[in-house]
C-alpha cells in the first residue's frame, strides 16, 4: 500500500507539473488563438468530467446538464455586470438586484449553488426513473430552462444577446477550477460513495438489496455534477463575454456528450482525453472548413461540414469502441511507475498491481 501511495503522489506531481508548465508556456509564449483554445479546453474538461459523474459513474443519463451551465452562466453574469450596463441592458431588473455588482468568485459560487438547488429539486422527481425516462425528463428540463431564459426578459434579455459581461476568465481561473473539479470528482468516485454509485449503475436491484439508497446516491452525484457544470457556465460566460439562450441547447449538449463517449464514460482520465481529442479535432476541422481561425469552443449551430464529421466520428466510435477510448479504466500511471522504479525488495506476493 505504501507503494501505491507513493505512485499516486508521483502521478499527481507529474500531472501538476505538466499542467502548470503547459499553462505557463501558453500564458507567456503562445498566440492569443492558442490561449483561447486552451481556455476553452479547460472549460470543456470541467463540463465533461462533471457530466461523467452523473452519466458515467451513476448511470443517471442526463441530457439536460447544459441547463445547469446556463443557470451558472446567466446568474453569474447578471451579478457581475457593471451597474451602468445593468441600467442600460436590464432596465427591468428587480430593485435589489439592480444595485448588486459582485466580483467573479462570489458570483460564480452563487450561480453554482443556485444550480445545485435546482438539481436537488428536479433530482427528487427524476432519480427514481430508469434509463430512457431520465433522458427524456432531463431533456424536458433543458427545454424548460430554455423557455425560461427566452421569456424572462427582465432578467435575461430574452432571446437577445446578453453582452457586456466583464472579462474575468483567465487561463488560471479556468484551470484552477478544472483541477479542483477533477480532484473533487476523483475523490468522490474513489470513495465509498463512489463505489455505491457504481454499484447502483451496474445493478440497481442488487444495490438496493444491499441497503444502498439509490435515490440518495443519485441525487448527490447529480447535484455535485450540476455544481461544477454551473461553474463552467460562469467561466464560459466571462470568457465569451456575450451570449444568448441559444448557446445552451441541443448542439452544446451533443458536443459534451461526444467528448464523454469518446473518452469513455466511467473514466475520469477518459473524460479529459475525450475533451482534448474533440477540441483538437473540432479546431482542425473548422480551420480546414473555413480558413479563418475562430477560437471559441461553443459556437452557434450554424455550421456544416465539421459538425457532420464529428457526428460521423461519434457514430464510428460507438460502433467500434462502444466503451470509448478508455472504457471505465483510468490511465494506468502506476504501471508506468512500477516499470521505471521497480520495487527494491521483490516480494512475490505483491504481483497484482491495481491499475489506478
Amino acid at each position, binding site marked *: 500500500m505504501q507503494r501505491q501511495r507513493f505512485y499516486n503522489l508521483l502521478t499527481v506531481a507529474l500531472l501538476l507539473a505538466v499542467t502548470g508548465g503547459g499553462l505557463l508556456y501558453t500564458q507567456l509564449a503562445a498566440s492569443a488563438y492558442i490561449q483561447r483554445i486552451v481556455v476553452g479546453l479547460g472549460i470543456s474538461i470541467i463540463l465533461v468530467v462533471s457530466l461523467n459523474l452523473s*452519466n458515467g459513474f451513476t448511470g443517471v*443519463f442526463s441530457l439536460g446538464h447544459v441547463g445547469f451551465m446556463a443557470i451558472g452562466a446567466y446568474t453569474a453574469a447578471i451579478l457581475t455586470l457593471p451597474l451602468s450596463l445593468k441600467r442600460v441592458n436590464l432596465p427591468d431588473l428587480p430593485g435589489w438586484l439592480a444595485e448588486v455588482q459582485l466580483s467573479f468568485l462570489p458570483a460564480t459560487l452563487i450561480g453554482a449553488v443556485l444550480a445545485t438547488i435546482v438539481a436537488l429539486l*428536479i433530482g*427528487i*422527481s*427524476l432519480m*427514481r*426513473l*430508469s*434509463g*430512457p*425516462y431520465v*433522458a*427524456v*425528463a432531463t*431533456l*424536458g*428540463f433543458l*427545454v*424548460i430552462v430554455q*423557455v*425560461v431564459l*427566452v*421569456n424572462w426578459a427582465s432578467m435575461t434579455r430574452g432571446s437577445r444577446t446578453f453582452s457586456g459581461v466583464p472579462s474575468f476568465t483567465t487561463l488560471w481561473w479556468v484551470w484552477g477550477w478544472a483541477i479542483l473539479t477533477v480532484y473533487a470528482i476523483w475523490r468522490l468516485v474513489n470513495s465509498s460513495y463512489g463505489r455505491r454509485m457504481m454499484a447502483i449503475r451496474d445493478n440497481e*436491484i442488487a444495490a438496493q438489496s444491499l441497503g444502498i439508497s439509490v435515490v440518495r446516491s443519485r441525487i448527490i452525484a447529480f447535484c455535485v455534477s450540476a455544481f461544477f457544470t454551473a461553474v463552467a457556465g460562469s467561466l464560459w460566460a466571462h470568457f465569451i463575454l456575450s451570449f444568448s439562450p441559444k448557446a445552451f441547447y*441541443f*448542439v452544446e449538449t*451533443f458536443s459534451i*456528450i*461526444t467528448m464523454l*463517449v469518446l473518452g469513455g*464514460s466511467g473514466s475520469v482520465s477518459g473524460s479529459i482525453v475525450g475533451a482534448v481529442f474533440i477540441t483538437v479535432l473540432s479546431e482542425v476541422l473548422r480551420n480546414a472548413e473555413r480558413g479563418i481561425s475562430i477560437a471559441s469552443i461553443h459556437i452557434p449551430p*450554424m*455550421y*456544416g*461540414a465539421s*459538425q*457532420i464529421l*464529428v*457526428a*460521423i466520428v*461519434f*457514430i464510428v466510435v*460507438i*460502433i467500434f469502441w*462502444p466503451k470509448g477510448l478508455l472504457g471505465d479504466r483510468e490511465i494506468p500511471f502506476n504501471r508506468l511507475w512500477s516499470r521505471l522504479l521497480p520495487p527494491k525488495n521483490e516480494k512475490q506476493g505483491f504481483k497484482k498491481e491495481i491499475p489506478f
Partner: protein
Amino acid sequence: MTSVQFFIQQAINAVSIGSLYALMAIGLAMVFGILRLINFAHGDLIMVGSYAALLLLWAGLPFWLAALAGIAASTIAGLIMERIAYRPIRGAPDVAMLLTSFAVTILLENAAILIFNPTAKPFPAPAILKNALQFGPLRIASLDIVAIVVAIALLVLLTLFVTRTEVGISMRAASEDLLAARLVGINVNAVIAYAFAIGSMLAGVVGLLWSIRVGKIDPFMGFYPVLKAFVASVIGGLGSLPGAVLGGYILGILEILLQGLLPASLTPFRDGFVFAGLIILLLFRPNGILGSTEREKI
C-alpha cells in the same frame, strides 16, 4: 361566437394537433418497443420528407404526387438510417443507441443546411388545404379535418395490422420479448425494418401536414415535433402503441388547454409548463400512464 362554439373549435384544434403527435409517437414507440432505441432522428424524417416534397413541387409536379414522394422519401430515409446507423450497434446499451440517434440528427440537419442553407423555405400547398370551411356558425380549417381523418384512417389500419397480420403480431411479440422472438424463429431483422418503415412513413405524413400547417420548412423543423412525440410517448408509456396514441392526444389537449387558460403573461412559457407537467407525471407514474407502476421485479 358563443363559448360552446369556441369550445368546439378549440376541441377540434386539440384533436387535430393531438393526431399529429399521436402519429409521430407511434413511430417512436414501435422502434423503442423492439430495440429500446430512443430515435431522436425520427424528427428529421419529417424534414427529409418535406424537403423531398418541396423539390418536386419546385420541379412543377402536382401536389399529391409530391406529397406521396415526400412520404416515400421519409420511409426510405428511415430504412437507410436503420441499416447504417442502428443495426451495427444493436445490443449496445440503451445510452449508446440514444447518443447515436443524436449523431444521426446532427448529421442530417447539417447535411440539410449544406444542401439547402439554413433559411426557411416556403412550402406551397394547394388552396383547398389552407382555407377554412364554414359549418353554420363554426369555422373549421380544412387542414384540421384532413389531419383528423387521415389519423383515424391510419390508426385503424395500424390496429388491423398489429392484430390481424402475422408481421404485425410478430412486431408485438418482438416488442415484448426479443429473445423469445428470436428463439421462435421470427426474422428480427425484417420485423425491425417493418417497424422503421411504418414509423418513418407516419413521420412523412406528419411532416406534410405540419409543413402545410406552418407554411414553411427549415433544417431544424423536426426538433420540436420529435420532442413533443417523446413527451407523448413518455406520457403514455414508452414502447406502448396505445400509450403513444393516448399520450399524443393528451398532449394536444393539454397544449390547447394551457394556451387558453394561462394568463397572457405566461403563455410564452406554455411549453415549459408542459414539460414541468411531464416531470410531475413521472414523479407519480415513472413508466407513464399505461406503463406499470411497479418497479422492475426480479
